C-alpha cells in the first residue's frame, strides 16, 4: 500500500475529462497536488493552459501552473474541437483565472517540485506525453525521484481517434515511446478501462442533486460530454482522464495487470498504437507497464460523487 497522501504533478490538456481529473485530485485527501502543467492536445496550448487556470480557480486548487510545449516532439498538433468545443472546455461559464501562470515552463516546474519534494513524486498525465518525455530527457538524474507515471492513454484492444490508436498517444507517439521505454514505473489507463468508466444520465442527475457550484458545473461538463458521446453511439460518457487519478486514490476499484507494451511510431495504419503482449503470444515478454483493464463502475461513480460533495456549497 502506498503511503498517503501521494505527492503528484498533474500534466493535462483540459478538456472536460481532464477537468474532472483535477477535481478528483484536489478533493482527495490521498493526493497532494504539487503542480499543474499543461500540454497541447484537446486544444492548443494557449487554450488548455487558460482552461487549467480557470479550473484551478474554480476548484481552489492553489498549486503553481506552468505551460508546456506548443507542439508534439515530432509531429504537428492534433486537436479535438468536435469533442471539447472551440474553447477546449465548452459548456458552463467558468470564473476568470485568479491564479497566475508560473514563469517556468512545464518541464522546469516539474523538475523544481520533484527536486524539492522529500519523497518520490507521481506524475498524472492525461494528455499527450510531450512534457513528460521532455522532462525525462532533460532531467535523467531525477528519474529515481519519480514514483510512477499514471497516464491516460492508449488501449490494448483498439483505438478511438484511428482504428489502431487512442488520441493522447496518437498526438505524440514519439513522446509515448520515450516514456514507455524509460524504465520509470507506468500505470496505464487506456481505452480498455476508460470505455468502461461510463457515466450515465442517472449518474449525472445524482451529481447535480448534490448541490453547490462545483456540483452544478461538473454536471454541466458531464452533460456536454454525454451529449457528444451519445451522438456517436456510446451508451454513456467515458470518463477517460479521471481514471488516471482514481486508480491512485482507490486502486482496489481497478483490475490491474502487468503487461509488456510498446508504442508504434511508424506504420501505415498503426501509428500511435499501444501494442500489448496479451496472453496467447508465442514468446514471453517482460512486463514494463501495469495496465488497467477494468473497474468497479459503481465504486468509481461513488468516488466521483464523494469528491464533488467534498467541495460543499
Amino acid at each position, binding site marked *: 500500500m502506498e503511503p498517503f497522501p501521494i505527492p503528484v504533478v498533474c500534466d493535462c490538456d483540459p478538456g472536460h475529462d481532464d477537468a474532472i481529473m483535477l477535481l478528483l485530485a484536489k478533493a482527495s485527501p490521498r493526493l497532494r497536488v504539487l503542480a499543474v502543467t499543461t500540454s497541447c492536445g484537446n486544444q492548443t496550448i494557449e487554450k488548455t493552459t487558460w482552461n487549467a487556470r480557470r479550473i484551478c480557480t474554480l476548484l481552489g486548487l492553489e498549486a503553481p501552473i506552468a505551460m508546456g510545449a506548443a507542439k508534439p516532439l515530432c509531429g504537428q498538433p492534433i486537436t479535438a474541437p468536435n469533442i471539447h468545443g472551440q474553447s477546449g472546455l465548452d459548456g458552463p461559464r467558468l470564473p476568470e483565472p485568479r491564479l497566475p501562470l508560473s514563469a517556468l515552463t512545464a518541464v522546469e516546474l516539474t523538475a523544481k517540485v520533484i527536486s524539492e519534494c522529500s519523497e518520490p513524486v507521481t506524475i498524472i498525465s492525461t494528455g499527450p506525453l510531450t512534457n513528460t518525455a521532455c522532462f525525462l530527457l532533460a532531467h535523467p538524474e531525477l528519474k529515481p525521484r519519480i514514483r510512477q507515471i499514471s497516464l491516460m492513454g492508449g488501449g490494448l484492444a483498439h483505438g478511438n481517434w484511428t482504428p*489502431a490508436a487512442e488520441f493522447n498517444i496518437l498526438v505524440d507517439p514519439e513522446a509515448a515511446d520515450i516514456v514507455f521505454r524509460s524504465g520509470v514505473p507506468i500505470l496505464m489507463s487506456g481505452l480498455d478501462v476508460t470505455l468502461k468508466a461510463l457515466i450515465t444520465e442517472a449518474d449525472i442527475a445524482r451529481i447535480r442533486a448534490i448541490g453547490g457550484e462545483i456540483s452544478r458545473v461538473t454536471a454541466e461538463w458531464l452533460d456536454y460530454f454525454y451529449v457528444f458521446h451519445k451522438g456517436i453511439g456510446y451508451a454513456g460518457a467515458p470518463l477517460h482522464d479521471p481514471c488516471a487519478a482514481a486508480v491512485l486514490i482507490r486502486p482496489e476499484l481497478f483490475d490491474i495487470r502487468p503487461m*509488456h507494451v510498446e508504442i*508504434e511510431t511508424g*506504420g501505415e*495504419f498503426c501509428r500511435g498504437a499501444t*501494442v*500489448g503482449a496479451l496472453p496467447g*503470444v508465442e514468446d514471453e515478454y517482460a512486463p514494463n507497464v501495469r495496465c488497467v483493464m477494468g473497474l468497479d463502475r459503481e465504486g468509481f461513480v461513488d468516488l466521483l460523487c464523494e469528491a464533488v460533495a467534498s467541495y460543499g456549497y
Partner: protein
Amino acid sequence: MGTEKHLIWLDCDFGTDDAAALLCAHGAASLEILGISTLAGNVEAHKTFRNALRLNRLLGADYPVYPGAEAPLVYPAEPGYRFHGENGLGGVELPLPDRWETPAEKAWDALYRTAAAHPGALELIATGPLTNVALALNLHPELQKLLRRIVIMGGAAVGGNKTPAAEFNIYSDPHAAKIVFEAGIPLTMCGLDVTNKAWFSETELARVGACGTPAARFFAESLKTPLQASGQGTVRLHDVTAVLFVSNPELFTGQLAGVRVETRSALTRGKTVTDLWSDQKFPSRNAFVVLGVDRPAFVRRVSELVCSLKAVEN
C-alpha cells in the same frame, strides 16, 4: 440450408490444423472440393505439397493438388515446427500415394483456370499465408470478378500469436494479405478472435481418435503436437473454423468491418487493423470479421465429420 453444394478451392500450408480442415471439408456433404493448392507456411513448400498428397491417400481421395509459393512475397519463410512438427503433420508419418507426380501447372494458374470454369461460384478457403492468392490476383486480374468469396484463417481484431500484434499467417506474408484484403472480393476473416475459442480438450480429441478409423486416428494423433505445444492441455483448430464457417455458418457470429493490413512497420508487421470499436472508421467495410463460435456445437460437428470418414484401403 437447401441442397446447394459449395464449390470449394482449398489453399493450405499443411500443417496439422490444415490437415484437420481438409478432413472436415472432405466429410462435409455440402462442400465439393475442386482443387487444393499448397505453399510454404507452417512448414516448407515441398512438405506442404506432399502432405496434401498423403492426405489424399489417407482419405482415398483424388483431389488435384498444385504446388505454390516457396516463400512469402517479400520476407523469408519462417516455418512453425513447434506447433506442427518438422513434417507438418505433428510427426505422424503418412505414406505417399503409390504413384504421384508434381504437376507442371502452378497453384495460381490452376486456381484461376478453375474459377474461370465456374464464374461467380468458386469459394476460396485459404488457411495459410496469402501468397498464392495474392499472386493469383496479380497474375490473373480477372480472378477478382470470378470468385464468389474468400474465407481465410488469419489475422486478429485483437492481439496476436506470432507477435503481440499479429497472427502467424498474416505476419508471414503481410504484403500478400494487404493485396487480398484490398482486392474488393467478399472476404471473411476467421482470426484469433474466433479460432482461440474453437479448441478441443485432450479428452475431446481422444474421443474422436476412439472412432478408430484411420482418418480419426490421424486427427487425434497429429493434433497432439500442437496440444502439447500450447501448454494448456487444449488445441485450437484455427484452420478448421474457415471450413466450418462455410459448411455450418450457423455456429458463428461476427460483424462486417473495415480491416486493413499493416505492412510498413516491424512492430506491427501483419496486424489486421479493424475499425469495429473505434470512433473513426475506414472508408470501406471490406471484411466480415468472425468473432464468436458455439464451441460445444463446433466440437460436436467436427467430431461427427471426422468420424464419418470411411476407412479406406491403403
